[in-house]
């Protein structure tokens, strides 16, 4: 405990530990969004014609859309013309080995706790590091390739496995899906691509670490993960950004495609810069994440710990198409100071005997405002489908808000849906009880909140569960007086 405590103390002394800026030479296009910029990105990345066509089609559709306003968050609309849509660290060629990467960038990841150098790598975790718009390094690539696992940056995949990318891109999140998905489809620059071959249980955790560095850029990455028949992979996404006064837009798209008997476990520890105490700056996190359980007995499990961003707007979803497929969503979201989050999930049951579980834990502190919004839909053919939803909110202080908005629809009489939600606060009796055993109020709050989130934390890979608990404690600092 003392180490943990000391660490917490250190972490909390700096308001946002990951807020530094790295000084690298970058190739950045001037701000602005138009067809030329899209052509420029595509050209810069040496893309095949079909991909440029995909982008332009998405852009044409994007022009017909208006930003969504139904979510329960308030913010100044980002000026999409003021954003630069391409920023890449300058380097001569794609680095052949880690040694060729700009030492500044390596140092950045080191500082973030994600060492990329061969000798320091995390055991059992392969990392794809995305710096601003492009992937700068992927670790353990050889070991993975030997097993037939493709884990590389999206651009690399377009070059080396265009047929796979073309087969799956936009199949789960079509470019017509929503405003930000359309924007992403038009301007995405990089991201991660994963393909797990038939029957392989990937022994390494795969991880992508996103870092926004440059000012006035947005991050529009695209992640595509395919698990072929009987495959399994656990994938983790982490993210941070420098502390800047202006808001930055992060509009990613993540697509998961799962074949028969395969499983993808996708975990996110989201810690984008949340803005300062007065709500200045911070990331707008408008992300579309969706998985398709295409095959029978397939499974997708989303776990997310959301502590960062000024405004979060995302609903990692599962389309349960295959019979007996399973969707899970475990979420902890914390809003402190002036953070706002409208997050939840969608479980669309199409196949027979499909099952879904939703566990959502929302913590509001300070003047934070948070909404759980979820959709559970049982289609006409979802015979014997089941959903269970548990949505708990905890309010710390009397200036925050916690809202629960489930949308439930059933078109099949044999389907069963259960939704439960509760709202609690930390009781003064609980604090006194801890105090009486010699535990300080601050520790008590952090431990009680940790207990509140336990069902979700236990879904995270072990090392990230510890990380998540720490993040939570730091994010709670000063919220209870």
């Amino acid at each position, binding site marked *: 405990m003392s180490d943990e405590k000391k660490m917490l103390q250190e972490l909390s002394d700096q308001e946002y530990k990951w807020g530094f800026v790295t000084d690298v030479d970058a190739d950045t296009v001037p701000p602005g969004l138009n067809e030329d910029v899209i052509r420029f990105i595509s050209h810069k990345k040496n893309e095949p014609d079909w991909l440029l066509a995909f982008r332009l089609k998405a852009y044409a559709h994007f022009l017909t859309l208006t930003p969504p306003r139904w979510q329960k968050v308030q913010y100044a609309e980002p000026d999409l013309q003021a954003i630069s849509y391409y920023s890449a660290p300058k380097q001569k060629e794609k680095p052949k080995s880690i040694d060729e990467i700009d030492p500044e960038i390596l140092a950045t990841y080191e500082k973030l706790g994600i060492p990329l150098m061969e000798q320091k790598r995390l055991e059992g975790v392969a990392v794809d590091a995305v710096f601003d718009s492009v992937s700068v390094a992927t670790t353990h690539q050889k070991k993975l390739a030997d097993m037939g696992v493709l884990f590389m940056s999206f651009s690399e995949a377009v070059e080396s496995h265009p047929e796979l990318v073309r087969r799956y891109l936009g199949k789960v999140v079509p470019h017509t899906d929503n405003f930000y998905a359309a924007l992403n489809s038009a301007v995405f620059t990089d991201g991660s691509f994963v393909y797990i071959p038939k029957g392989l249980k990937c022994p390494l955790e795969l991880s992508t670490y996103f870092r926004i560095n440059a000012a006035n850029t947005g991050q529009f990455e695209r992640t595509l993960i395919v698990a072929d028949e009987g495959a399994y992979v656990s994938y983790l996404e982490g993210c941070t950004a420098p502390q800047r006064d202006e808001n930055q837009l992060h509009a990613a798209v993540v697509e998961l495609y799962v074949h028969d008997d395969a499983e993808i476990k996708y975990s996110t520890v989201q810690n984008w810069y949340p803005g300062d105490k007065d709500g200045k700056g911070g990331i707008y996190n408008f992300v579309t994440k969706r998985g398709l359980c295409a095959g029978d007995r397939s499974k997708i499990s989303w776990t997310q710990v959301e502590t960062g961003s000024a405004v979060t707007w995302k609903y990692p979803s599962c389309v349960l198409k295959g019979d007996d497929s399973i969707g899970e969503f475990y979420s902890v979201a914390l809003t402190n100071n002036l953070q706002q989050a409208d997050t939840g999930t969608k479980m669309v049951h199409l196949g027979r005997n499909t099952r879904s579980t939703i566990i959502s834990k929302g913590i509001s502190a300070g003047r934070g405002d948070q909404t759980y919004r979820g959709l559970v839909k049982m289609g006409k053919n979802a015979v014997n489908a089941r959903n269970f939803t548990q949505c708990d909110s905890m309010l710390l202080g*009397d200036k925050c*808000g916690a809202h*629960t908005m489930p949308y439930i629809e*059933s078109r099949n009489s*044999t389907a069963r849906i*259960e939704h439960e939600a509760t709202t609690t606060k930390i009781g003064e009796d609980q604090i006194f009880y801890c105090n009486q055993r010699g535990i300080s109020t601050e520790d008590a709050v952090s431990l009680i909140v940790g207990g509140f989130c336990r069902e979700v934390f236990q879904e995270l890979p072990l090392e990230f569960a510890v990380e998540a608990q720490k993040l939570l404690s730091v994010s709670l600092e000063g919220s209870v007086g």
Partner: protein
Amino acid sequence: MKTASPDKSLIYQDVFSSGQAAEPAWQRYGALREQALAHLAAHGLETRGDEAWVHGSAGGLAGGEALPVSGLRQTTATGPAALARSHRLVFLNGVFAPERSNVGELPAGAVVQPLSTGGETAQLGGLPVTEATGLVALNALFWRDGLRLELDDNTVLDLPVELHFINDLAGKPGLVPTRNLVQVGAGCQVTVIERHEPGASKLIEQPLTEVICGVGSRVDHIKLVGGAAAGEHFGRTQVVQQQDSRYRSWEIVTGGHLARREIHLELAGPGAACDLNALYMGRGRQRFDLRTRVAHNAPGCTTRELYKGVLDGEARGVFDGLIRVARDSQQTSAHQTNRNLLLSDDAVVNSIPRLEIYADDVKCSHGSTTGQLADEQLFYLRTRGFSPAEARTYLAWAFASEVI
């Protein structure tokens, strides 16, 4: 702003403006009607696109064919059976029918009469929860009659006040809005029963009841929408509760081709409690839409909601409930439950139980379940000699009986 349908509302505006001179009933409450007219002119009917219309249907209102009918017609329709003992008021096509009514003896301090008689009351339409919406404006523009119930402090009505709304337009389309006002003082007790039968196809009835519960009062409010006819029903109840008052509501909806019922309730004084129950049982192509909006605007108040739906055939049921706990409404206790039973694969249910909470010292929860009859229960009854059909019927009733 909202994608209004100005053309339809224009029809209503024209009807009102041209018919005004000929309709003495419409000349009463002139200020209220002017406001309604202004709202319709500015916003239209707003019967779609809006949050209040998620999964909802405006039915014949969207078409604008059903126009307000004028005057009492002869009808042989009798409506539902009356209670043996009650203060009974009957309204035929929205107008008081004295020959069928029997208000009877009233204690001192009680007024029970048609709203069309006596002087205008300032309370009407003056409730804070009367947000201007197209439907409210439509009602405000065209109602002719309804109940006026006023109780002085500490008045207790032992017998229920029973309202029958009988509609018969001989198969013609028509809109029948009615307006009821229930205003009870401190320490009063009363039970109000509204019986609605929407009438034949293309007939739209639109009752709006305002309830003001004085300090420490007890109001029980039963609303029945039944009958076999295929008309439409758009009912709304607006309630404001003062300190320590208790309002209990039962909405039983089985009739009409389309029935939408809304409760807009404000807990305005500390310690007030509301208990809202509903049962909607649909079959064929019936469509029932039940909405609640409860605002906790004072500390120490309690809400309990239990809404249950049983849907067979191709029926569709919507529950959309929102409990909003304002900042500083501490020690709130609010629990919202929606349970649905689907008896057919062609039936559809939508459930949106929502909590919006801005105070931290609260106990709030909601739950929603949707499913079919439990196989074990069916099996158990069959081993005791019930036929499958009987077993299903009994179990469906058992499910529903929690509300009644």
